[in-house]
């Protein structure tokens, strides 16, 4: 009797450990496919994978975070405006959900800022006034919560770089932010290996552009 009891105890301990590692394994699996993405379909695939985890693990914010991230990326590549809007609304929905789980996470606000920037592209004339203010608020909040997070600087900088100079963008305003992001990316340490860690490579490319621009100026 005693042994059976002890077995059940160990079994249940192993099981819960298994389910914890199950979560981590599934997350790692998702992150691996995210890092080796080749096509648009893959993004949908990865989004689906993370959404399944999010559905099962209602107290974790990371699966929803990555799913929302995938949908924003999918929306960049979508040409048809109606479909584009649906993808963004889906992403917004996920962001709202994970904000309920973790209301003070710098990474979520950085993602929210990127999402709002994408809403601007949907209908610049109508959305720019409201959403550029909203995006800036989200980035400000992200920086408030963690001033070492490079992503709000990177996203702000990238957006400015692709905004024509006549509209307040251009290299001059963008590069200081890209440089700041680069410095932060350089010393950024993830809390654990599941935490977000994207944007560095592209930021480096943007930084090179800034370098070329400065060389030209001289």
């Amino acid at each position: 009797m005693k042994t059976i009891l002890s077995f059940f105890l160990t079994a249940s301990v192993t099981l819960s450990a298994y389910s914890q590692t199950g979560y981590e394994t599934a997350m790692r699996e998702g992150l691996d496919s995210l890092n080796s993405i080749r096509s648009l379909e893959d993004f949908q695939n990865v989004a689906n994978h993370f959404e399944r985890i999010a559905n099962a693990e209602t107290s974790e914010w990371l699966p929803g975070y990555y799913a929302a991230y995938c949908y924003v990326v999918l929306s960049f590549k979508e040409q048809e405006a109606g479909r584009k809007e649906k993808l963004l609304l889906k992403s917004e929905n996920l962001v709202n959900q994970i904000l309920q789980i973790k209301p003070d996470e710098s990474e979520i606000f950085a993602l929210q800022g990127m999402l709002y920037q994408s809403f601007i592209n949907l209908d610049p004339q109508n959305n720019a006034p409201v959403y550029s203010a909203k995006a800036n608020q989200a980035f400000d909040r992200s920086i408030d919560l963690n001033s070492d997070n490079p992503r709000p600087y990177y996203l702000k900088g990238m957006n400015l770089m692709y905004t024509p100079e006549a509209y307040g963008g251009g290299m001059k305003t963008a590069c200081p932010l890209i440089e700041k992001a680069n410095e932060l990316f350089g010393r950024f340490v993830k809390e654990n290996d599941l935490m977000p860690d994207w944007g560095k490579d592209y930021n480096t490319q943007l930084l090179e552009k800034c370098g070329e621009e400065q060389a030209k100026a001289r």
Partner: protein
Amino acid sequence: MKISHIILLILVFCSSNAQTIINGTVKNARNKPLTGANIFIKGTYTGATSDTSGFFSISTPIKDTCILVIAFIGYKTIEQEISLDQEIITISYNLTESTSELDQVIISAGTFEAGDKKRSVLLSSLDIVTTANAEGDIYGALNMLPGAQTEGETGKIIVRGGESHEMKTFMDGMLISTPYTSRMPDIPARGRFSPFLFNGILFSTGGYSAEYGQALSSVLELNTEALAEESLTSISLLNVGAGLGYTHRFNNSSFTLEADYNNLAPFFAMARHNLDWEKVPESFSGQIRYRKKTGHEGMIKSFLSYSNSNSRLNYPNYSNGTKDKIGLNDENLFQTTTYNTKLGEKWIMKTGLAFNFSRENFDINNDKIRDKLHSYHAKMSFNHYADKNLTLKFGVESFNHQNQKSYYSGELSEDYSQSYNDYLFAGYAESDIRVHKSFAIRIGMRSEYSTYIKLTNFAPRISLAYQISKTGQFSFAFGNFFQNADNDFLLYTDSLNFEHATHYILNYQYSSNNRLFRIEAYHKQYNNLITYNSQEQTGYQLINNNGSGNADGLDIFWRDKETFTMADYWISYSYIDSKRKYRDFPVSATPYFVSKHNLSVVYKYWVPKISTQLSASFKFRSGRPYYNPNNDSFMSDRTKSFNDISLSFSHLNSLFGNFTIVYFSCNNVFGFDNTFGYHFESEPDDTGTYQAHPIQPYARRTFIIGIFISIK
């Protein structure tokens, strides 16, 4: 190892090895494969994504039953319990598109819908604030849409040849009896409520739902925001007044308190105007808004506003060449509370109670006119979503209007007083039927009974919409509309009939991503309009329902946000041919408020570098008819055409995290000399001619300057 251990291990081993495989395909309603759908077992990570042929395969260790979820963006999610009793299970699914999507056929004849959606809106609340010429007034912005024109001297909206009282304004479905501010003669009124209050605006110029009655021409539905997003303090400073507001957001509710003080003294000091004020308009107003989420998707919205204004004006008297001293003090209280909730999955219940009290005290020299109005509106309606192709809406409502007008003659020291009290009961039912994905039909019926005139009306309505392609749609609407005569007449008699209008509308709409074109032809027939013989000081003589009229026209609208980067423009043109034999008209004639040709162009340009929206507008109205006692042919004179070019500038900024708008607008920048009509002297001069005095805007140009700050 004990035997029990071995048995347990075997059990665990077996169950994890005996996998069930679920194979299947996901297709849309037309049997085309859907790529990218998410198929998974509820509560687990187990699942798959459908490939380019819609195929998926899942293997699971679970035995007996599980819930399989099939989800894809833009489609309705399916959840199905399946039993895993075989090794391989094959299933296929057809997903149907979700009904709330924008690309479905929607009934659109006569309606301009605006909302807070990110795309595909015709006019948003922000548009109103940033439309030059509108001066931040909702009705001012409607004026730039097809089918609508403003009666310049009153500031009120005329829709397709209907008088201003033929349009009714609702807040969250509840009637606002006095939607405009009180006004002095020849000075335009404004909408009582700020566009910032609303996140959805539905402007219908005809053929509207059976939910609405007592409006012959038009319905304007204003939908207020749900919960305020966050706590904040708002400050506004303008050359016409100042305001202070505070909003507190709780978890499931929000509360807003606002106070405004308006004084037009700085405005009139800056503008060149032709008014002889003894006291420029000054007003106080306050507002309380409360929102609460209740239970499962229920919402209580409560709104209370109060205002009190004062002004005194010396106004020319055209019968004796002197000036009358006119004083106006008015008080207005509006309250509405609505409660909406879901009843189960397929029913929504909406209830509401509104109350409006208005008192206008006019003092003209030694005479006094007192006008008091109490009105109540109670409503209860049910929406039933039977399935995606059939919805049903029905409800009952009651209105009570009590109006008392008294006149005191200082010269005779005598009092006259009239009043009436009407209870109006109404019931309506309406069904939206989607016969096919591209064809929808709406059939509705409304009936009303008025206790004051003791009559009942029946108003059938029908609309059809047919989508010819992803971008093009035809719509048709027909409807009967009834309305009680204006208060002015009901005060004198109860032996009147409802005024009546019949609408026929044919509409074609093209909409692509960021472009919209619509053309709408209509015919409106008026019957039972009020007629009377003459207007004496003591009231109207021989009031009857013998009038009739018609309005035929064409409205064209083009909006384009795509062609020019960062620019948005729209062009609206309306042609109208309308005649009436009503009031004291001796013959059928085009009424004084109708311009035959109406053109509006609005251009907005967003400059991100300075976060500023620039807006310019052009408005042209062909000449309006006016009555000239020197001309034997009734209403055959026309004023010259009306022209206006206006500019506005809205600068958005985030000062220390506080959202700030700096606003400037100037109407009639080029100072066109516009005339709305003429007042004629009551007696002819020595040559036998009645002298004319033009009715013109009180100022050649008007300016509004302001700053709005939100502090978190």
